[in-house]
Each structure stands twice: as structure tokens, then as C-alpha cells.
């Protein structure tokens, strides 16, 4: 397990280095790799703050443009993913401050996503239920929950990305899941 983690970590470091160097010299292939490797992560951070697909897409694009613009100032020795996370989180918070009250766009877009299959519809219903459930948490807790499952429950990885301590992450995670468990029965009926 530890070797596997190290291997993945090394792969990520090499990949990160290639993308960062490519972006610094304005390589188009590096831009494509940047979108391929990091857009999902950035999008999920933005989405967990905004809980709204169109705005999360806008915030993701804005974040990636900011990263591209500021790449010359990136400290090569530090974690690129953590740097992207900081920019994405702050950008999403800025978007949230000027967010207009909307109807649940997520539910509509989730259903439009299904492709018509029963599995797809069930998945979309689950997604909508989870999105509604996550509204009971504050933005930071939502992002931590998201990172926890995104990084396959690897606390060390979340520590590196967010800069929070292990105990702090565990406390926030416990409180967030406690809150979700409290509200979950309302949503389980629908799923």
C-alpha cells in the first residue's frame, strides 16, 4: 500500500513538473494536459463550494486562466495541486459571494445528464440527493468531504492540498459526517 502510494506520488510529481514547465514556455500540449489532469479536481472544488453546475464551470475556467497567468511565479518546489486548490477555493468563494439566488439548477442539469437509462436516472437522483444533503454544510466542510472521497480517504493527501493539520481535518470530517448523517434520512427516502 505504501509502495503503491509512493509510486503514484512520484508519477504525479513527474507529471506535475512536465505540465508546469510546459505551461511556463507556453506549450499547447501542456495546456491540454493541464485541462485533462486538473480540470476535474478544480471543477469539483468549485462545485462543492457553489453547488451549481454552470457557476462551477465558470469558476473552473476562471481559476485555470488565473493559474496560467500566474504560472511564472509558481514555486517549482511546492505542490502544484495545492496551489491550484488555493486559487480554485478562493475563486469559488468570490463567485459565491456574488451568487444570485437560483432554483435548484443542479437537479435539472443532473437529470439532463442521465442519457435516459435507468442506471443513469438513479445515479442522477442520488447525485441530486447528495447535493441537497451537502447544502446543510458550510463550504469548507463540503470541500473537505469531497476531497476525502476524491482522494480515496487519504488524509495525508488532503493535508498537503489544504495545508490543514491531520487532527483538524479529522475533526472537521467527523463533524461534517455527523451533520450529514443527521439529515440523511430525509433524503434516503427519495433515493
Amino acid at each position, binding site marked *: 500500500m505504501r509502495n503503491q502510494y509512493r509510486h503514484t506520488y512520484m508519477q504525479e510529481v513527474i507529471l506535475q513538473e512536465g505540465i508546469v514547465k510546459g*505551461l*511556463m*514556455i*507556453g506549450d*499547447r500540449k501542456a*495546456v*491540454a494536459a*493541464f*485541462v*485533462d489532469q486538473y*480540470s*476535474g479536481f478544480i*471543477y*469539483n472544488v468549485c*462545485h462543492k463550494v457553489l453547488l451549481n453546475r454552470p457557476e462551477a*464551470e465558470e469558476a*473552473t*475556467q476562471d481559476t*485555470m*486562466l*488565473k493559474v*496560467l*497567468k*500566474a*504560472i*511564472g*511565479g*509558481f*514555486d*517549482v518546489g*511546492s505542490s502544484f495541486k495545492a*496551489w491550484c486548490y*488555493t*486559487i480554485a477555493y*478562493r*475563486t469559488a468563494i*468570490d463567485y459565491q459571494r456574488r451568487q444570485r439566488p437560483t432554483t435548484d439548477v443542479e437537479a435539472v442539469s443532473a437529470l439532463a445528464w442521465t442519457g435516459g437509462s435507468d442506471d443513469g436516472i438513479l*445515479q442522477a437522483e*442520488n*447525485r441530486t*440527493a*447528495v447535493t441537497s444533503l451537502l447544502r446543510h454544510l458550510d463550504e469548507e466542510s463540503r470541500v473537505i*468531504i*469531497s476531497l476525502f*472521497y*476524491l482522494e480515496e*480517504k487519504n488524509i495525508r493527501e488532503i493535508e498537503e492540498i489544504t495545508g490543514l493539520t491531520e487532527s483538524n481535518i479529522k475533526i472537521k470530517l*467527523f463533524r461534517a*459526517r*455527523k451533520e*450529514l*448523517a443527521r439529515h*440523511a*434520512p430525509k433524503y*434516503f427516502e427519495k*433515493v
Partner: protein
Amino acid sequence: MISHEELMWKYLDGECTAEEKNHADMLMKSDSGFRMMYDQYSKLDSLLAKTTYQEPTAEFKIKLTETLAASLTKVRPVNQLKWIVSPAWLIILTVAGAIGLIVAGLSTSSSASVFQYFNMPDQRIFSMVTLVCAGFVLLSLLDLFLKKSFIKNRGVTAIMA
């Protein structure tokens, strides 16, 4: 003693110690409330694991790649010429200067002659250059020490502005 709720999450995350796992297994057999909690929490856990990650759509990724490529300008890395002002040169000069001063000091027989030696114009220049280099080395070390926290924070703040 940790609460049942805490124990349950540790159990589901696979983070229990052997003792905690035995305790949880025992509660699963004997406590119907704990079993019910397990059903609910494991359902929530798997639901979160399955649906938390949302893949951006392919259309969005294509549009994003095009937008980023269009905005692409050749960015000059900040540290491209870093090697010219590298503290390594200053360290080498300082060490060489210090060795030179020590050798000069050792090669003189008395304190009076040391004074005379360093009072010679070319030796004074040599000593001054060494001291200036040492000053630069100290400042560079200070810069390296502060760089991580200061530049990193300033960088992110500037991006967000």
C-alpha cells in the same frame, strides 16, 4: 472511550485498531441500534463515495482547452536567470576570501605584523570584498528563509486581486 458514532466512522474507513475492531464486531452482533446505525452510515458512506466526484462534461473540457490555448502567451519563468544571482557564487567567494584571510593570518608571526598586513591597500580591498560577500550570503539565507511563506502568500493574493 470513543463514542459509537466515532467508532462507526473509523470502522467504515478501516481505521480501527484491533481492539476497536473487536469491540465494533461485538456490538454488531449484540446491539441492534449499532447495527441500524451501521446500515444507515454505510449507505451514506457509499453514496458519498459514488457521487462526490463529478466529471466535467467533454464539451466543457474542449471549450476550456480552446479558451486557455487562446489566452496562451509565452510566459517567462521568473527564475530563468536565477543561476546568475545564485547564492552559490557568493558562498564560494566568501569561503575563498575567508580561507585567504586565515592563510594570511597564519603566515604572519605576530599580531603587529597581522595589523601591518591588513593595513596594506590591496589587502584592505580583499577584506572588504570578503565582508561584503559574507553580508550578501547572510541576506540570501534570510531571503531563502522568508521566501516560502512571504512570496507564496503574496503570489496567491496578487492572483486573487
